[in-house]
C-alpha cells in the first residue's frame, strides 16, 4: 500500500506540473482558437529568468516576480509583433508562427543565458513530508497549490466576469465581438499576457523539482497539450483534471507495469478517452446548426 501512495504522490506532483502548463494553453486558445506552441517557452522563461535574477543576488520572491512580469511582457510582444499582424490568417498558419516563436525564444535564451541545466532552491526546503507511508517534497505542495489557485482563478474569470466572457466571444466570432463593442485587440493582448504569466508562474514553481534549461519547453508543451486535450481544450477544469490524470497515469504505469512504456500508456489512454469522448473529458460540444 505505501507504494501505491508513493505512486499517487508522484503522479499528482507531475500531474500538477502538466496541469499548470495545460492551464496556460487555455486562455490563448479560448481567445483565438490557437494552440500556442510557445507556451512551453513561457514556462522555461519563468524558470530561467528566476534562476539568473536569483544568481545575480536578488531575493527569490523578487526574482520570481520579475520572471513572471518579464514573461508576460514577452507574451504581449509575441502577440503584438507576430500574432496581431497575421490577423485573419488561417489557424494552421498562426500555429506555425507560434512554433517559429518557440524556436526563436529558445534561440535567444541560449544566447542571453546559457545551455546549462539550472535550479534554484525549493521554497520551503527539501525535507520530505511523510504521507501514509510515502513521502512528498514541500515544493510539490507548492506546485499543486499553484495549479489549484490558477484553476480557480481561471474558472472564476471565464464564468464570472464579463471580460472572461468577452475572451470566449472573441474566439467564437471575432467580427461579432467587435460588433458588440469588444476591443478584440486588447482581449488578445490580455490573453497573451495572462497565458505567459501563468506559464512563467509554472516555471517558477516547478524548477526546483524538474530543473530547467533553455530547451525544456518543448517536452513540457507537448505534455501540457496532451493533458489539455485529454481534459477538453479550453476548459480550465479539463486542463486541471487532464494534467493530474496524465501524471497519475504515468506514475502508475511506471510503478506497476513498465517504466519504458509509461508515455505510451498515457497516450493509449488519451486515445481511448477521445474515441469515447471526441471532445475530451470536459470539452464542450460544438453546436453548429445546418
Amino acid at each position: 500500500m505505501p507504494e501505491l501512495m508513493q505512486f499517487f504522490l508522484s503522479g499528482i506532483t507531475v500531474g500538477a506540473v502538466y496541469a499548470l502548463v495545460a492551464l496556460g494553453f487555455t486562455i490563448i486558445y479560448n481567445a483565438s482558437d490557437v494552440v500556442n506552441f510557445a507556451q512551453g517557452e513561457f514556462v522555461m522563461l519563468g524558470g530561467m529568468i528566476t534562476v539568473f535574477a536569483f544568481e545575480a543576488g536578488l531575493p527569490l520572491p523578487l526574482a520570481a516576480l520579475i520572471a513572471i512580469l518579464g514573461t508576460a511582457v514577452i507574451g504581449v510582444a509575441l502577440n503584438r509583433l507576430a500574432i496581431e499582424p497575421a490577423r485573419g490568417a488561417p489557424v494552421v498558419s498562426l500555429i506555425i508562427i507560434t512554433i517559429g516563436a518557440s524556436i526563436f525564444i529558445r534561440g535567444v535564451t541560449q544566447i542571453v543565458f546559457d545551455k546549462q541545466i539550472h535550479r534554484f532552491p525549493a521554497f520551503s526546503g527539501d525535507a520530505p513530508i511523510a504521507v501514509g507511508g510515502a513521502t512528498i517534497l514541500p515544493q510539490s505542495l507548492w506546485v499543486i497549490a499553484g495549479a489549484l489557485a490558477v484553476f480557480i482563478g481561471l474558472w472564476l474569470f471565464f464564468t464570472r466576469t464579463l471580460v472572461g466572457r468577452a475572451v470566449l466571444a472573441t474566439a467564437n466570432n471575432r467580427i461579432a465581438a467587435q460588433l458588440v463593442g469588444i476591443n478584440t485587440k486588447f482581449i488578445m493582448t490580455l490573453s497573451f499576457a495572462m497565458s505567459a504569466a501563468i506559464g512563467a508562474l509554472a516555471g517558477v514553481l516547478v524548477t526546483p523539482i524538474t530543473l530547467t534549461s533553455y530547451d525544456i519547453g518543448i517536452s513540457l508543451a507537448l505534455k501540457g497539450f496532451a493533458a489539455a486535450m485529454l481534459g477538453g481544450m479550453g476548459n480550465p477544469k479539463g486542463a486541471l483534471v487532464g494534467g493530474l490524470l496524465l501524471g497519475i497515469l504515468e506514475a502508475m504505469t511506471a510503478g506497476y507495469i513498465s517504466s519504458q512504456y509509461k508515455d505510451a500508456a498515457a497516450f493509449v489512454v488519451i486515445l481511448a478517452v477521445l474515441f469515447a469522448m471526441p471532445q475530451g473529458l470536459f470539452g464542450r460540444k460544438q453546436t453548429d446548426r445546418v
Partner: protein
Amino acid sequence: DIKIGATVSETGPASFLGDPEAKTLKMLVDALNAAGGINGEKIEFVIYDDGGDPNKARTFATRLVEDDEVVAIIGGTTTGTTMAIMPVAEDAEIPFISLAGAIEIIDPVRPYTFKTPHTDRMACAKIFEDMKKRGFTKIGMISGSDGFGASMRKQCLAIIGDYGIEVLADETYGPTDADMTPQLTNIKGKDGVQAVLNPGFGQGPAIVTRNYAQLAIGLPLYQSHGVASDSFIELAGAQAAEGVRLPGTALLVAGLLPESDPQYAVVKAYKEAYEKATGKPVSTFGGYAHDAFAILVDAIKRSGGSESSAIRDAIEATSGLVGTTGTVTMSATDHLGLDLSAFRMLEIQKGGWKIVE
C-alpha cells in the same frame, strides 16, 4: 592552412554534452592559432551544430568533406550522430574522431574512425569492479531511455555476469521526466538490493539522486560518467548527492591530483583555460573534445603535412599522448587507446569530489 571540421550537438537533447565540446574546440583552435599554428600553418576550423539529429549530422559531414574539404573531422556528440557521420568519413577516407561513448564505434575497428571517450563498457567495468570490491552482488538499475542511458545499460548488462553481480530491478525513465519516485520505489521494494546504478546524463540523474534522498533508500548509489561535472552536485544538491559514486576522469578532480600525476599538467591547463574562457565549470565532455583535438594536432604535426591518409596513419600511431581522459596509445586494432586506469572512482563528499581508490 589546414582545414579541420567538426559537427557536434551544440543544441538539442544532447546540448548538455555538445555545448562544452564546441566551446572547447573553438577555444583550442584560437589558442593554437595564436601560438602560431601547426608547423607554421594556421588551422582553419569549421564547426556545425547538428542538434543531435543523425540526419543533419550526416549532411554536415558531407558538407565538411565535399564542400569545405577538411582533412579531418571531429564530432558526433552522440552515438547516433557518430554512426551517421562514420560512413561519410569512411567513404571519403578522412580521419574522424568521435566524441561518443558506444563501443560499436571502434569495435570492429574501421580504418578512419577513432574516438576519445572511454567506452560505456569501460565505465560499467569500473563501476562493477568497485561494487565487487565492496561486496555487492545484487543491484538495482535505473537508466535513462535516451541514447546514452540505453547504450550504457546494454553494455553494463552485457558484462555484469563477469563480475558475479545480478540485476534485481531494471527500471528506466524518459530524458525529460520530472519525477522518478515510482521507479525508485520499486527498486526500494525489491528485497536484497544492495546498491543502485543510474546510467544517464542531463537532468535525469540529478532528479534520480534527489528522489533517492527523498525516499530515504539508504543504499549506495552509483552514477555514470555521464554526470561527471561539478554542476551535477549543484543540481542534485550536496546533501542528496552525498556518498554518490561514479567513474570520472582526472579532469573532474584536477584540484585533488598530486603534482606527480602524469595528467596533472594537462588537466590543470585545460580546466583553467576553459573556465577562464567560458566562466562555466569544465565537464568530462569538453575534455573528450580537448583530447580529440590534441590527438589530431599531434598527428598532423607528426605526419608533417595535411594529407588525410597520412594523418590517419599518424593518429593510429598515437602513443603516450596525455589527455584529460587518460593516456592514449592507439594501434591498428585499438582506435581508442585508453584502458581502465584512465577512470578514477570518485565519491561525492560534502559537496566535493573525493578519489576513492
